[in-house]
């Protein structure tokens, strides 16, 4: 392919988030949030059933 003049760096820069040094940690955090939401919604459903 023909490289374009503004080709962006495709290197895997660290996420730079406090407490989350690797992308694997970010994905684990996001998945944890998802799991937490499911649990919270289950509790919510149970409380107001």
């Amino acid at each position, binding site marked *: *392919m023909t*490289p*374009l*003049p*503004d*080709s*962006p*760096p*495709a*290197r*895997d*820069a*660290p*996420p*730079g*988030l406090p407490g989350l040094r690797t*992308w694997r940690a*970010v*994905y684990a955090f*996001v*998945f944890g*949030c*998802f799991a937490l*939401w*499911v649990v919270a*919604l*289950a509790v*919510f*459903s149970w*409380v*107001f*059933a």
Partner: protein
Amino acid sequence: MSLLDYVVLLGTMVGIAVYGVWQARGRKNLSAYLRSAHTLGWGTVGLSVMATQASAITFLSTPGQAYESGLGFVQNYFGLPIALIIVAAVFLPIYRRLNVYTAYEYLGHRFDSKTRLLGAGLFLLQRGLAAGLTIYAPAIILSTVLGWRLDATIVLTGLFVIIYTAVGGNEAVSVTQKWQMAVIFAGMAAAFAVLLAKLPSGLGLTDTLAVAGSFNKLQAVDFSIDFHKRYTVWSGVLGGLFLSLSYFGTDQSQVQRYLSGATLRESRLGLMFNAVLKIPMQFFILLLGALVFVFYQFETPPVFFNRATWAAHATGDAGAGLRAIETRFDAAHNEQRAKIHDWLAARHGADPEPAKAAMLAAHQRTEALRTEARQALAAADPIAQKNDADYVFITFVLEQMPHGIIGLLIALVFAAAVSSLSSELAALGETTTIDLYRHVLRTDASDLHYVRVSKALTAFWGLIAIGFALFAHLAENLIQAVNILGSIFYGVVLGLFLVAFFLRRIGGTAVFWGAVAAQALVFALYFSLNISYLWYNFIGCAACVLFSLILQSAIGSRGATAQPGCSILSSQA
């Protein structure tokens, strides 16, 4: 709507569009025009991805869905965070390493030209039709409740989006989407605050939720394994994962959004922003609908929320039957309201169950009258829309909100409509320019030439969308028809990309004919089987992968031309 509402509506929408075009002025470089020259931060990318997915129908229909059926629809989004993690970890690094403009350009690198054209063609066909519905669906609701002309609403909305999208390009789309999302968040917060203030005095948040819960409106998750239920945790995780992977990973209207990030990090964080916030956002919108339900337990609602359609048939001698149902409904609702107050008074007592049973029985009587009203309307006018759920929230807004807030909430609906449409038009124009015009017709023109062509093609697709929306009313089941069309093609497109990313030994010839055969199979099954069209997403994808494997093993290693860095097993991301 008052003059103040129109000032808020027009001032918000035009102001945001002018600001977006001004921010993106003077972009003559193709990369700057089509992907903002990779300058956007993760916040803008994240809001842009969110705005593209959230259409006007999200804000008109979703609260109505909660009003009717509760919060269970939130489970539909359970596969989304997992899909976005896969897109961020697998799809995105490869797209960025190859520095592609479109997802289909990647198919060209990984396979060959014909597979790229196949992927681009399927996208243009599907998204080109869907863009018309993006204008039509909110226009039909707003024109009905506000008394505007449908054709004028469609044409003005479409032209407005065409102008700022074609002139400002991708950056104008992203910048406007950021502020349009701000309007959407402000509108939702205002609706929530006003709604809480409108509830009867003395009814606290706990009592409010208790009332909603007693009518089964707060059942957000369902762990049962029942294939007949529309929304369960399992169908949400599996089906939602599949659909979200197709949408975020292969649909150019989304790929274009996150490829605009300044770096791989910005693009990834933009996607993770959505992965974290999408479920709570949908829950909040649904909760708004549940609270509107509680509000209308203490305030008499219309027997049919599409008041314009009801009023058109409830006049004169012919409408006497409808008016009689309305009178009986009002009386039944008054009785139900009294029973709810009885239950609230008895709720903390020794035995609240009899009061609750009486309340639920009264509710069943009012629901039976609503059903009777729909059936009577259908008998009076067989082509009248019988489902009024889409009109619940807009009716509440127009009849209960203060002036100024009404303008803000109508701006919210328009902001959602134009933000989705602008992404679709930009993606359609970009794909036609990059994958057809530059790839096939004219390969060696200047950037300025391609920018001009892209602007013209964006406008062209906008006019196609307007034309399609203007004639959409001629087909009663058009929305379903386009959904079916999307499901018929979406599965095969995802199959193409899954083979590209994960099966590096399969080459262009095998996957192209595998995809063609899978598409033919889907068509054959569609005309011979009677199953839900959602299944064709899975069937098309599985058939594409399977046929590609079979064809590749039949032709041997010939044609297997995976380039380094084009598939997950050969990438170092």
